[in-house]
C-alpha cells in the first residue's frame, strides 16, 4: 500500500530532521537546534530597553517663540468666504490688503524677541515646569494656578493630546489643528467665545463645561469620562496658557510700538493686570435664572417664542437677522479676533456648538460674543432676552413653534400665517 510506505518515509525524514545536525536530502541547508536563538534575543531586548525611560510627558523644552502674525485690527468689511483649511497663515497675511492691520513678530529685532522670551520664561517657566510668578497669591489660589497644579495640568494636557490641536503654547496650531474647521481655539489673547461672565474671559465653570461637554459641530470632544479633578487641572492649565499668551501678545505689540523701557517689571505688571481680569470674570454676577415659561409647546412658552420672533425679525442695525439671515441658513460671515472667519450659527439646526442651555444662551444674547463681533444687547429688558432664548431653543423643533412662527421659519411645511 502506498500510504503506509509514505508514512514510513515521512517518519524517517522527520526523525532525521529532528535529530539535529542532520542534512535534509538535497537542499543543502543545515538544521540547527539549541538555545542560540533565544539567547540572541536577550542582548537585543536589553539594547531595546536602554533609553526607554524617557517620556514625552516629562520632556523639558521651552515654549517656542511666537512667529505667527498678531492681528491688531480687523478689516471693516465682512469676509467673502469661510476660512480655508491649511491656509490660516496665508489668510492672516492677506488681512492687511483688506484693510486690517497685522504685526509679524519676525519684524521685531531679534534681541527684543529674545528678551521677551527670556522674560516670559522667568515669569511663566516651561511646559514641563510651568509657574506663574505673582504677588497676587489669593488670585492664584482662586484660579488654581499653583505650581504643583500647573505641573499636573501640563502633564494631563500632553497625555490627553490637547496639544495635538491646541499646541504647546495654546496657539491652536497643533499638528492636527490646520486640518479641522473650525480651527482649534487660540488661547493666547485670553479671548474665549463661550463665556457667561459678561466679558471675553470665561469663568472657571465655563471652561469646565466646555471640557465636560465638548463643542458640538467641532472637533472638540467631551472629556466627561475624565475625573472631575483632572478636568479642573486642565482648566487651570488652559487659564495659565491664556494668561501667558496674552502677556506675550501685549509685550510684542508694545515692543512693536517701542513703548517698553524695562521689560522684566513691565511683563510682571502686565501679568498682574491679566490676572485681575480673570478674577473679575470669576466674580462677575451670575446669569439670572430663567423664568418659568412652562414646557415647550405650552401656551406661555409659545407666547414667549412669539415675542422672541418679533424681536428677532425686527429690522435695524445689529438686528439678529443681519447676521443670522433666514434664521442662520444664509449667514453673514464675520471676522474673529484671531483673523479667521466665523459663520453665525444656523439656528434651525441642532445642536448648537455650546449646548443650548438657557443660561448660556442668555449670556450670549445679553453680552454678545465679542471675539466674533456678535454685538451685546443691553437695550433689551430681561424678559425680552428670555423671549429670544425661548425662540432660539425652539427654532430647531417645528412642533414647538406657534403656527405663524412655524410658517415663517419653515415655509416648506405648507402652513401660512
Amino acid at each position, binding site marked *: 500500500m502506498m500510504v503506509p510506505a509514505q508514512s514510513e518515509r515521512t517518519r524517517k525524514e522527520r526523525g532525521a530532521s529532528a535529530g539535529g545536525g542532520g542534512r535534509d536530502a538535497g537542499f543543502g541547508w543545515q538544521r540547527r537546534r539549541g538555545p542560540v536563538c533565544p539567547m540572541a534575543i536577550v542582548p537585543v531586548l536589553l539594547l531595546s530597553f536602554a533609553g526607554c525611560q524617557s517620556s514625552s510627558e516629562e520632556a523639558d523644552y521651552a515654549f517656542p517663540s511666537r512667529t505667527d502674525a498678531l492681528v491688531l485690527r480687523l478689516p471693516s468689511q465682512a469676509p467673502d468666504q469661510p476660512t480655508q483649511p491649511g491656509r490660516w497663515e496665508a489668510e492672516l497675511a492677506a488681512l492687511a490688503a483688506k484693510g486690517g492691520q497685522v504685526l509679524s513678530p519676525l519684524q521685531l529685532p531679534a534681541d527684543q524677541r529674545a528678551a521677551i522670551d527670556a522674560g516670559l520664561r522667568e515669569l511663566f517657566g516651561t511646559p514641563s515646569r510651568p509657574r506663574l510668578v505673582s504677588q497676587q497669591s489669593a488670585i492664584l489660589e482662586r484660579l488654581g494656578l499653583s505650581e504643583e497644579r500647573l505641573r499636573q495640568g501640563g502633564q494631563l494636557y500632553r497625555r490627553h493630546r490637547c496639544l495635538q490641536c491646541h499646541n504647546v503654547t495654546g496657539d491652536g496650531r497643533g499638528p*492636527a489643528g490646520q486640518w479641522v474647521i473650525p480651527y482649534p481655539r487660540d488661547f493666547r489673547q485670553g479671548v474665549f467665545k463661550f463665556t457667561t461672565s459678561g466679558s471675553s474671559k470665561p469663568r472657571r465653570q465655563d471652561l469646565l463645561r466646555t471640557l465636560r461637554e465638548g463643542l458640538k459641530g467641532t472637533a472638540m470632544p467631551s472629556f466627561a469620562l475624565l475625573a472631575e479633578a483632572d478636568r479642573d487641572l486642565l482648566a487651570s492649565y488652559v487659564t495659565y496658557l491664556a494668561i501667558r499668551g496674552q502677556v506675550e501678545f501685549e509685550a510684542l505689540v508694545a515692543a512693536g510700538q517701542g513703548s517698553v523701557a524695562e521689560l522684566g517689571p513691565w511683563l510682571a505688571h502686565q501679568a498682574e493686570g491679566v490676572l485681575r481680569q480673570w478674577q473679575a470674570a470669576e466674580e462677575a454676577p451670575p446669569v439670572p435664572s430663567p423664568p418659568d415659561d412652562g414646557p415647550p409647546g405650552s401656551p406661555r412658552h409659545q407666547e414667549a417664542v412669539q415675542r422672541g420672533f418679533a424681536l428677532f425679525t425686527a429690522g435695524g442695525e445689529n438686528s439678529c437677522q443681519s447676521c443670522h439671515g433666514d434664521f442662520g441658513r444664509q449667514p453673514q460671515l464675520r471676522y474673529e479676533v484671531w483673523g479667521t472667519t466665523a459663520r453665525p450659527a444656523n439656528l434651525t439646526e441642532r445642536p448648537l456648538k455650546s449646548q443650548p442651555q438657557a443660561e448660556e444662551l442668555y449670556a450670549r444674547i445679553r453680552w454678545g460674543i465679542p471675539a466674533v463681533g456678535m454685538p451685546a444687547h443691553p437695550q433689551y429688558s430681561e424678559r425680552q432676552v428670555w423671549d429670544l432664548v425661548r425662540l432660539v431653543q425652539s427654532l430647531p423643533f417645528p412642533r414647538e413653534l406657534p403656527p405663524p412662527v412655524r410658517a415663517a421659519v419653515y415655509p416648506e411645511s405648507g402652513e401660512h400665517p
Partner: protein
Amino acid sequence: MNRLAPPPSDPGDPVPSVPGLLRVWAWLTVAATCCLLALGQLVTSFQAGMADPIWPTEPWYLLLIDWQEPSPGYLIEHSHRIAGFLVGGLTAVLALGLWWTQPQRFLRGAGSAALLLLLAAYGQFHGALMAQRHATPEAVQWPRSATVGLVFAGLISLGLGLWDVGRRQRGAAVRLLGILALMAVMIQGLLGGFRVLWDALAGTNLAAIHGVFAQCVLGLLVSVALLAGAVPAQRLPSGSLAFFRRSAVLLAVLVFVQIALGAWLRHHVNPLAQRLHVLTAFAVLGGWVWLGTRLRAVREAWSGVKYLVIGAGLVLAVQVYLGVEAWLVRYGAGVPPELAPITLASAAWRTGHALVGSLLWVLSLALALHWVRGMTTVPAGIGTRRVSPEGMASPESLESRSSPEGASRPSPELRRSLSVAVPAAGEEE
C-alpha cells in the same frame, strides 16, 4: 526519467471548495478592505480620528451635513467610516455566501440563521448607540440586551463553524474563516467607534489597538480569498515541506509583529516601540532574504512561489526607502515627535509606509498559506454538495481522490487540471 521523483507530499486540491462568484466576491472584499485601510492610515497620518467626536453616524451622514465649511479631517474620518460600512456589508454577504455552500442542509440552515442573528444583534447594538450619539459619553447607556444577543449569536456561529471543521466537511475551514472575518470586522467597527467615544479614557490606546486589529481583519479576509481557491499539490519531501511551512509561518508572524509595532508607533511616542520596530524591520528583511534564497535553491518549491518572492523583494526595497522617509518626517523635524507638523508630503510618506507594510504582511501571509493551505483541504469527493457552473468536477469524477490510490493516481480530468504534470497509471518508473 520522471522529474517528479518525490511523490506528492501534499496532494493539494485542484478543485476550489467555493464557487467562482464567491471567490470573486472574496477578492472584492479584500480590495474594499485595502481602501478602508488606506483611509484609516490617512486618518492616523492627519491625526483626524477625533475630527468628529460624534459616533455612531449613519453611512450617508456626509450627505446630511452643511458643507459650508470645508474640513479635510472631517471628510477623511467620515470617508473611513463609510468604507467601514462597505466592508462590513461585503463581509456579511461573503460569510453568508460561504455558509450557503455547506453541503448539509441542516448545517447550512443553522449556520446561515446564526449569522443572520449575529447581524441582527449587531444592528440592534449599533442602533442603540446611535440613538444616544448626542449624549455626553458618561451618560451613554450600554445596550445590554443587544450585547447578550451579540455574544450568544457569536458563540453559536463559532460553535457551528468548529463543528463543521470537526466533521471534515469540504470548505469547512473557509466557512469558519468567513465567520471569524465577519466577527473581526464587527469588532473592528466597534473598536473604531469606542476609540472616539472613550477618547478621554483611553486616549490613542484604542486607536492603536484598532490599527493593529485592522491587520488581523485584512489577514482573515485575504486568507478566505486564498483558501477559497484551488490548492496546488506540493511535490517536496515531507521534511522539506514541513521546513518551508514552519519558516513561512514564522516569517508571517514576525512581519505581523513588526507591523503591529509600527501601528503602535503611529499612535504613541513610545521609546520601546521605536526601537523594536526598527530592530524587527532588520529581522523581517533578513528573514525574507534567507527564506527566499532557500526557496530559490529548490526548483520544486521555487516554481510555485517565484513571483510572490520576487514581488516581496521589490516591496521590501520600497518599504525600506519609505521607512527612512517616514522616520525623518516624524523624528527629524527638530521638534518633539508629537508636535511634528503634518503636511501633505509627510502624511503621504507615513501613509505610504504603513500601506506598503500591510502589503508585505499580505505577501508573507500568502507565502505561509501557500505551504499551509494543503492541510486545510478535504478531498473533493467528501461532502461535495453540487457541481458549480464554473467547472467544478463532479463527485463521480473525483471519487478516486477519496481513496489512497486516487491520491497518487488521479483521474485524467484531474491530471489535466493540475498545474504540474502528473504521470498516469503505469507511467511511473
